């Protein structure tokens, strides 16, 4: 590695990707300065608990920090909170903050993430009772509005993971929760009909109302109370509304600097953008995944952290390419869902229920022809880890053995 002593690496974005990149740079031997910039005022925190333990009151943001405050000092990582970056001046190799100050870089990492999409529905914008759920401030707002409300009536627009996790967390606190989903099943964009049915049943049993094929047309506010109006005229009253209908990738900064974009900031396997000194990592990137042979964009902690490590390694001179198997998890009530691989394009699914397990340990094994492509495991860490191992090895179990609950879930038994 060339001498980095007098060099500067700037990172835009202090969430999972940005913060992990900073610490990975130090570990990989970057000797120069490292500065992270983020609009958020908070010390960087884990986002997944915001819709889970934080809403239900089991944990606090302070308990969910990515790194302790002292770690930034120890590793000499400058953390600039509450500031937004206005522009990248590529020819001068510097960034400009909203207050006009400029910072020079030798290497720049964009970890700009994504922002909740607020659909253009009358009444959604400008209400103090309507919340997206992405930041600690959003989660605090939801919790305060919920705790201070009389009826504890919550309408959640969007039956994705964020919406369903928020529904579970607020239901635990006694909320009357309705989830309105535009598609004909929840989690339509992210999982199979079998898993959608499982979560619909789970929420229904717990007392959450799930209404699919409900398109919200407007939200009316009278004093402290809201009415969510659906196309067709159905009306739902609410003390607060949570909007979880997906995100828009934060590409403005990259775009206005002339970096290549497609479904996100375009990067190669080393996380390098179309500028040789600018890397991009995390939710904001679009990249060709060698395992799947196509360009993808992933919104996950795994992708953020793994891409951060790859970018840091490459900046510090070791040529590393991203090839991680995607993994995700979701906690709802007492159910833990763990997923690995990407099921897109599967044409066969094996549903396996372990005979003597309470709560039921279930796993779904997705195949494209004979090739295993993904595993979803419900309360079944063993199936998840086994799936991960098999996917890493590029092998595939025999579907008919998997489907037989009498056959033990072990490589020695389920392989062809």
């Amino acid at each position, binding site marked *: 590695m060339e001498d980095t002593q007098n060099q500067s690496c700037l990172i835009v974005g202090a969430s999972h990707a940005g913060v992990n990149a900073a*610490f990975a740079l*130090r*570990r990989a031997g970057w000797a120069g300065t490292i500065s992270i910039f983020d609009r958020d005022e908070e010390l960087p925190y*884990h986002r*997944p*608990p915001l819709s889970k333990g934080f809403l239900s009151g089991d944990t606090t943001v302070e308990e*969910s920090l990515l*790194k*302790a405050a*002292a*770690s930034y000092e*120890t*590793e000499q990582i400058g953390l600039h909170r509450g500031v937004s970056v206005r522009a990248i001046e590529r020819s001068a190799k510097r960034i400009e903050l909203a207050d006009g100050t400029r910072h020079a870089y030798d290497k720049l990492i964009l970890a700009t993430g994504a922002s909740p999409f607020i659909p253009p529905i009358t009444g959604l914008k400008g209400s103090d009772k309507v919340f997206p759920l992405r930041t600690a401030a959003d989660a605090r707002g939801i919790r305060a509005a919920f705790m201070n409300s009389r009826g504890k009536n919550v309408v959640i627009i969007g039956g994705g993971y964020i919406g369903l996790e928020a529904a579970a967390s607020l239901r635990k606190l006694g909320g009357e929760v309705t989830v309105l989903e535009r598609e004909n099943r929840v989690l339509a964009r992210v999982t199979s009909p079998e898993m959608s049915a499982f979560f619909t049943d789970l929420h229904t049993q717990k007392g959450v109302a799930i209404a699919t094929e409900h398109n919200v047309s407007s939200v009316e506010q009278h004093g402290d109370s809201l009415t969510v109006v659906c196309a067709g005229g159905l009306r739902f009253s609410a003390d607060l509304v949570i909007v979880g209908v997906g995100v828009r990738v934060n590409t403005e900064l990259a775009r206005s600097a002339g970096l290549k974009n497609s479904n996100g900031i375009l990067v190669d396997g080393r996380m390098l953008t179309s500028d040789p000194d600018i890397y991009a990592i995390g939710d904001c990137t679009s990249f060709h995944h060698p395992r799947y042979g196509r360009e993808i964009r992933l919104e996950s*902690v*795994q992708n953020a*952290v793994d891409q951060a490590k790859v970018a840091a390694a490459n900046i510090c001179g070791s040529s590393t390419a991203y090839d991680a198997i995607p*993994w995700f*998890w979701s*906690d709802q009530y007492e159910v*833990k869902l*763990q997923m690995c691989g990407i099921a897109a394009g599967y044409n066969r699914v094996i549903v396996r229920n372990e005979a003597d397990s309470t709560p039921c340990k279930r796993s779904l094994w997705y195949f494209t022809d004979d090739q295993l492509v993904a595993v979803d495991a419900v309360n*079944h*860490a*063993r199936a*998840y*880890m*086994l799936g*991960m*191992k098999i996917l890493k090895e590029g092998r595939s179990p025999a579907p008919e053995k998997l489907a037989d609950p009498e056959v033990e879930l072990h*490589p020695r038994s389920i392989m062809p």
Partner: protein
Amino acid sequence: MPQSWCTNRFPDKKEQSGTVYFFVNDLKFLTEMAKINFITKAGVEMQLEAASGSVMELAVNNSVPGIDGDCGGVCSCATCHVHVAPEDWAQTGAPGDMEKDMLEFDDNASEFSRLSCQMSISDELDGITLKVAN
């Protein structure tokens, strides 16, 4: 843990108009530090101490290489895998069911494997040695 805690929960408790007062001594157990020794894959020894939280958090906050804790400590990622020194196994105890499931197919797993996010720091763990698995 102070003997008084085990035999008599609040030996110096004073009750007054429904308010419970504790003397500082009673809270001593909360601040007793446990020293934990980490040995990284590269063979570097690090002695760290804390009074609370999980072993994973202690390691992450002190940048112990190989302990990432990507999922934040909810037993979902297995990026905080350690091997407990055999002589300390009685102190740490065996993994829970889910933790065991997360470890079973890990190529680096041994009979002394634990996920450090599932190990709560208390003075029970004082002096143990953990080898980082990855």
